[in-house]
């Protein structure tokens, strides 16, 4: 809503600057989008072209003698429509036009020019508001030498409000005036309407077949003289952002801006009926709106008919057939209330959003429907020389029964945390012009029709709070005492983050909406169906992701393309499956890990990532991860494994298939994706204290040679299966394949640790245990001691 300050001054006295008003508005009512002077120009006067002759030396220029009362100026003008005998806007030397353009004496092709005759465009009034080519020729009474902006009522300022959907009352100048009156604590005058009716009776009958039209008032207005509106009205419409057209159209718009009640005028002769019947459309019915477009209707769309055929799409747009035109002399003027939801559905479906539909959508003041009709009638009588038939035809099913909202002072103060007195609250309600009574600290407030947003006492508390000012309230903290803490899962996530960043991985976050084309690429369960977005914004984001690996690969690729030597990242995200949301832990490693720079850095491999995982698992108190070689599409067929714990699959670890990484212009990328909740479940919840053994453990190294294809895991299992009491652990310290062993063989260096917390071990028993293990490896795996 663009608020003209000149207009506002019709209702309340204003002495504040527009900046002050804007500040007050934003602190007490609604956000202000911007404020501006309607025309940012200085030094403009009314001039009269006494003569206008062609320029002696230029075809398209004229030389005009312009009387500005104090002097006569010679002005060279390029507009084709300039002529003698016109009242025009003159920018004298020294005048400043929008954009800081200053007018100076110039010589144009040998003729001295002292000033400029202005077009409305040059005044900064958008072309859509006037559609004029060339200079502005003033129609109407003006006096030479007067300030042109004043004379044209363009010396106005505008405050543009960014309205929230609840404050429909501020879609009218009356509503804005009420709000400012309350904020500024000032008197307000809303003009009363007086109409002299003709003797001829309004013989229209108005009925409805649908509840979606709640009321409908119609006046028959005759003897119209269609002509331009008075200058002041045009200027106010322009300030409000509406293009002036002619007096009839302008008056309906003007009254809509005044009252918030949209009006519609039908050409009464073209209406060709003595009745208005409101009904809803049938599915598939069509209607030609006044923009000459055929509209396909749906059940529920509100149609105004003349009893035989539709003449308007109620609340949204009039019909082409009954449109007011240049020769219209009689109209049926409509002021009605339509169902907000239906108007919203119809206007948004047909993409016909207008000033009217917007107001109906948000609900109009049912107390102003009749007033708006009368006010427009009054203006038509005055500015279109119209007459009006006696009696207004109407029906009105709106609920206008008195509604009282009750609120106790105690509750007001309890909600606001304030210490307001009865007198203070009464004063605020008075400033708001609410009708109320107070008894024993309880306020009984009559719900005003001009505030359809009022539902309960909460709305009243809001009014009292905002008019009193929120600045004045103290800043305290809630007095409810409670214990703040993280859940175990929330703590666990923080531990994962702590461990992985400690291991040198950067945390990333990527988008959860991905393309269905590659949503399954790195997913283990190829039968999963991604969840689709009903109306995706693009093909790149049409499903929810099942894995974060694609996103992490994008991150690797993005950074490697920008000179990063290595990218080691993780994300704590989600997989969105039909069975529910699963929390994920995803890692990607590419390039040297913890680079030694000028010293030798071990090459990043499957085992680098595995080491990171084991360190994480150790920190989280997860023991006994098992790795099962697996072959999976889009992964390296021989460097990928499923990770399990006690038979339960936790996730996948492996190398992205080189073909895939090549497509991304990347070298080897190793990834891991775990179901975070499963990791959470097996993570240690309690740490138990164990006495640290004072006795040393003993380690024994052996080197064995066995078939290359035997996984270390199996050798270890065999060792553990020996159930040797003093055996604690075994680890691999060396792996060798090459000329010193057979072609299909490998040599493994195994380090075994033996200990007993109660006694020192004897050499013989360690030898015994070691021999037992070697023997078992020989028998089970044909391994030999090297």
């Amino acid at each position: 809503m663009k608020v003209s300050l000149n207009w506002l001054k019709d209702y309340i006295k204003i002495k504040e600057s527009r900046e002050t008003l804007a500040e007050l508005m934003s602190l007490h009512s609604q956000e202000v989008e911007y404020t501006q002077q309607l025309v940012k120009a200085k030094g403009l006067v009314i001039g009269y072209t006494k003569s206008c002759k062609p320029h002696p030396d230029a075809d398209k220029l004229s030389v005009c003698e312009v009387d500005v009362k104090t002097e006569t100026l010679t002005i060279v003008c390029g507009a084709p429509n300039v002529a003698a005998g016109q009242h025009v806007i003159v920018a004298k030397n020294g005048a400043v036009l929008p954009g800081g353009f200053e007018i100076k004496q110039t010589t144009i092709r040998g003729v001295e020019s002292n000033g400029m005759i202005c077009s409305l465009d040059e005044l900064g009034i958008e072309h859509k508001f006037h559609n004029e080519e060339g200079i502005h020729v003033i129609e109407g009474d003006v006096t030479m030498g007067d300030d042109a902006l004043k004379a044209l009522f363009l010396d106005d300022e505008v405050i543009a409000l960014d309205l929230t959907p609840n404050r429909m009352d501020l879609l009218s100048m009356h509503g804005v005036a009420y709000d400012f009156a309350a904020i500024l604590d000032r008197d307000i005058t809303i003009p009363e309407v007086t109409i002299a009716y003709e003797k001829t009776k309004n013989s229209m009958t108005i009925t409805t077949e649908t509840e979606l039209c709640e009321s409908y008032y119609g006046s028959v207005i005759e003897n119209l003289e269609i002509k331009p509106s008075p200058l002041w009205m045009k200027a106010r419409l322009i300030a409000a952002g509406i293009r002036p057209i002619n007096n009839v159209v302008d008056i309906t718009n003007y009254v809509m801006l005044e009252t918030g009640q949209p009006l519609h005028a039908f050409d009464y002769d073209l209406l060709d009926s003595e009745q208005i019947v409101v009904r809803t459309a049938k599915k598939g019915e069509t209607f030609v709106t006044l923009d000459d477009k055929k509209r396909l209707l749906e059940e529920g769309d509100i149609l105004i008919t003349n009893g035989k055929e539709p003449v308007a799409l109620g609340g949204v747009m009039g019909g082409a057939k009954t449109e007011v035109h240049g020769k219209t002399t009689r109209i049926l003027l409509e002021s009605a209330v339509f169902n907000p939801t239906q108007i919203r559905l119809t206007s948004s479906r047909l993409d016909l959003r207008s000033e009217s539909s917007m107001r109906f959508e948000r609900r109009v003041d049912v107390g102003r429907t009749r007033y708006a009709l009368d006010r427009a009638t009054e203006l038509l009588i005055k500015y279109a020389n119209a007459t009006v038939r006696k009696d207004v035809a109407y029906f009105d099913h709106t609920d206008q029964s008195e509604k009282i909202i009750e609120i106790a002072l105690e509750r007001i103060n309890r909600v606001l945390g304030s210490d307001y007195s009865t007198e203070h609250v009464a004063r605020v309600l008075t400033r708001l012009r609410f009708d109320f009574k107070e008894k024993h600290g309880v306020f009984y407030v009559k719900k005003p029709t001009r505030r359809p947003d009022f539902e309960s006492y909460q709305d009243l508390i809001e009014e009292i709070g905002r008019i009193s000012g929120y600045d004045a309230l103290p800043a305290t903290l809630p007095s409810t005492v409670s214990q703040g803490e993280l859940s175990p899962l929330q703590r666990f996530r923080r531990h994962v983050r702590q461990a992985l960043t400690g291991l040198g991985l950067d945390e990333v976050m990527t988008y959860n909406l991905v393309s269905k084309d590659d949503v399954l690429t790195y997913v283990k369960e190829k039968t999963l169906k991604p969840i689709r977005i009903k109306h995706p914004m693009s093909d790149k984001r049409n499903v929810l992701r099942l894995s974060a690996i694609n996103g992490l690969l994008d991150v690797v690729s993005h950074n490697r393309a920008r000179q990063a030597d290595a990218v080691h990242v993780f994300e704590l995200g989600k997989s969105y499956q039909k069975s529910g949301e699963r929390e994920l832990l995803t890692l990607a490693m590419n390039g040297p890990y913890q680079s030694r720079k000028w010293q030798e850095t071990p090459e990043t491999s499957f085992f680098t990532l595995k080491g990171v995982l084991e360190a994480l698992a150790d920190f989280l108190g997860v023991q006994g991860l098992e790795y099962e070689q697996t072959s999976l599409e889009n992964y390296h067929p021989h460097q990928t494994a499923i990770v399990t714990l006690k038979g339960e699959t936790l996730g996948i670890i492996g190398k992205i298939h080189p073909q895939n990484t090549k497509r991304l212009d990347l070298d080897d990328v190793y990834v891991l994706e775990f179901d975070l909740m499963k990791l959470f479940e097996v993570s240690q919840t309690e740490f138990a204290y164990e006495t640290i053994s004072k006795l040393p453990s003993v380690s024994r190294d052996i080197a064995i040679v066995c078939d290359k294809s035997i996984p270390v895991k199996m050798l270890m299992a065999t060792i553990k299966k020996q159930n040797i009491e003093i055996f604690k652990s075994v680890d691999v310290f060396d792996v060798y394949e090459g000329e010193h062993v057979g072609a299909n063989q490998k040599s493994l260096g195994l380090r075994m640790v033996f200990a007993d917390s109660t006694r020192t071990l004897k050499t013989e028993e360690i030898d015994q245990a070691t021999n037992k293990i070697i023997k078992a490896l020989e028998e089970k795996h044909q391994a030999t001691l090297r």
Partner: protein
Amino acid sequence: MDVNKTIKELEVALKEALDGVEKIEALQDVKAQFIGKKADLSLLMRHMKDLPNEEKPAFGQTINEAKQRFSALIEARRETILAKKMANKLKKETIDVTLPGPSYTLGTPHLLRKITAEIEDLFMGMGYLVKEGPEIESDELNFEKLNLPKEHPARDMQDSFYLTEDTLLRTHTSPVQVRTMLEYGGAKPVKIICPGVVYRRDDDDATHSHQFMQVEGLVVDEKTSLSDLKGTLLAVAKHMFGEDRKIRLRPSYFPFTEPSFEVDVTCSQCDGDGCSMCKQTGYIEILGAGMVHNNVLEASGYDSSRYQGFAFGMGVERIAMLKYGIDDIRHFYVNDLRFNHQFKGGKS
């Protein structure tokens, strides 16, 4: 024979010999030569028997003292040789201490996670629980129970990604508030914050993201007031933007709160005087808040004649962008590590 003279001569000879010794083996020879059994000094003892008895002890003492002195001289030389040897060895181990160390880098937590954790910690300190919920929500929990019935015009304000007729990607973390109130059964006070990922149908550009993070808060009891909301949000503003910050509440509209506010914090760049960052207003909008709407309380089983409270919601990206002057929201999801690495630990 003058034993003292002989010892003196031997001592001179020893010193001379030691000066030329550079190796431990050679030192052994010198040692044998001067204090060994066959050394001149030892041989001097033979003269003892020729001396009168009363002179014998003094003679013996003189020899022994000389032997000790010689021994000390040899030891001193040994230490010198060893020290030199060590010094030589260490010299060979000279390094250039200005060479760089390996790049043992610690990873950086994502800035959004870092800020979320900071907010969580702040609120936990004030006794709030951290509650979470699913991102795929029902229309009922995301909208209807929040006073946003199907035809509510405010649904336009947050155009959403629907998955089916009545499930969607949540547009805010408010459904977690609803879930918590339902869980509590309208019977006990609520004091929670709800961090999480949310979605809106926005085209991604410098200031819009179809996916972003929110932290919402909710307090419901019998007396929590708008003044309490003010104090709480002031604490947030001070914590995130500095001790000197002030806040102001501007009336706004959200269907789930009444009254509703946009909350501004004084600009940290200009301290409220007006600058380009705050568009000359001296204030920067940081979050939305309000007193919980009665319809929301009732829909989740709380008796609105008894219970009341506040709710607020902030965009984590927005907070981060304001705090660090980040100019493009897409940075958070592109993960150019040159961006991510700018926000590490330190004291913050």
